[in-house]
């Protein structure tokens, strides 16, 4: 199945809003760290419902926000959630970004980067569109050290890239980005049921659920264009 087919389905069944709610727990902490100045242009790769860009408009007075998604239904949903004239959505693919060189101040991506058919090509594209000193904030819950995410691949027909922390740093550097930071951001908000309620539908033990959210959380790697 293509990205379009898979995620158009998610969009029409409302999963864009469900992801927004869950991802927000950790995404907001990563978004708060981005040194966005008033007027800066931000590109959100795999924007889903588009919440991240809207938050950067509200909290940091970002200038233009471009949300790019491979699923037309996602982009249409996202456009429907805002009247802000400074926010635009477009359909495109991670493998060939439709922007000129040095046109973007910051690139953001939450839970989307690893769907790139060729993640190194995508990094090279990001390095191309960023202006010198621009940042790439790459946030993922699906990564090697997060053992509880490994089985996600079975649920989706698109091939996912499962790098570990070091592979992220190495690949950023190979694409010409400096690595400025790497961190895991815990999800302190998701409700974890009491011991007695385990096993649940998704979790065998409470310990595993605690480890998944409170410890592994979201892996953030921050690159800076030279």
């Amino acid at each position, binding site marked *: 199945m293509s990205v379009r087919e898979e995620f158009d389905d998610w969009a029409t069944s409302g999963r864009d809003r469900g992801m927004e709610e869950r991802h927000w727990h950790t995404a907001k902490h990563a978004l708060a760290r981005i040194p966005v100045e008033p007027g800066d242009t931000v590109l959100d790769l795999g924007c889903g419902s588009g919440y991240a860009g809207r938050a950067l408009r509200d909290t940091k007075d970002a200038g233009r926000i471009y949300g790019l998604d491979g699923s037309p239904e996602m982009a249409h949903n996202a456009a429907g959630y805002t009247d802000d004239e400074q926010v635009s959505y477009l359909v495109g693919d991670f493998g*060939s970004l439709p922007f000129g060189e040095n046109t973007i101040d910051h690139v953001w991506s939450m839970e989307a980067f690893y769907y790139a058919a060729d993640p190194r090509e995508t990094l090279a594209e990001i390095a191309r569109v960023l202006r010198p000193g621009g940042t790439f904030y790459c946030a993922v819950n699906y990564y090697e050290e997060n053992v509880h995410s490994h089985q996600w691949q079975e649920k989706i027909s698109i091939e996912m890239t499962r790098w570990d922390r070091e592979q992220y740093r190495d690949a950023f550097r190979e694409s010409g980005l400096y690595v400025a930071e790497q961190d895991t951001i815990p999800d302190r908000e998701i409700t974890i049921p009491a011991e007695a309620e385990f096993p649940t539908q998704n979790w065998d033990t409470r310990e595993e659920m605690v480890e998944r959210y409170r410890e592994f959380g979201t892996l953030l790697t921050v690159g800076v264009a030279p």
Partner: protein
Amino acid sequence: MKESLLDILRCPLDKHELELENATYADTDGDTDAAEVVSGELVCTDCGEHYPIDDGIPNLLPPDMREESPA
């Protein structure tokens, strides 16, 4: 989409500039800076590839990844 987006948008294939053709605009009381393009096509000034704008959203997928949406 805003027409000003053309400043930074490029053809996904060869990264050349795009031109807007057959545009229809939303009613913006004559303020052309704020002109919102509702439909039309973006055409690469180099390779001539056409990219559709549907419902104000440009589709800049490489042509081989694009599927026609049902009417």
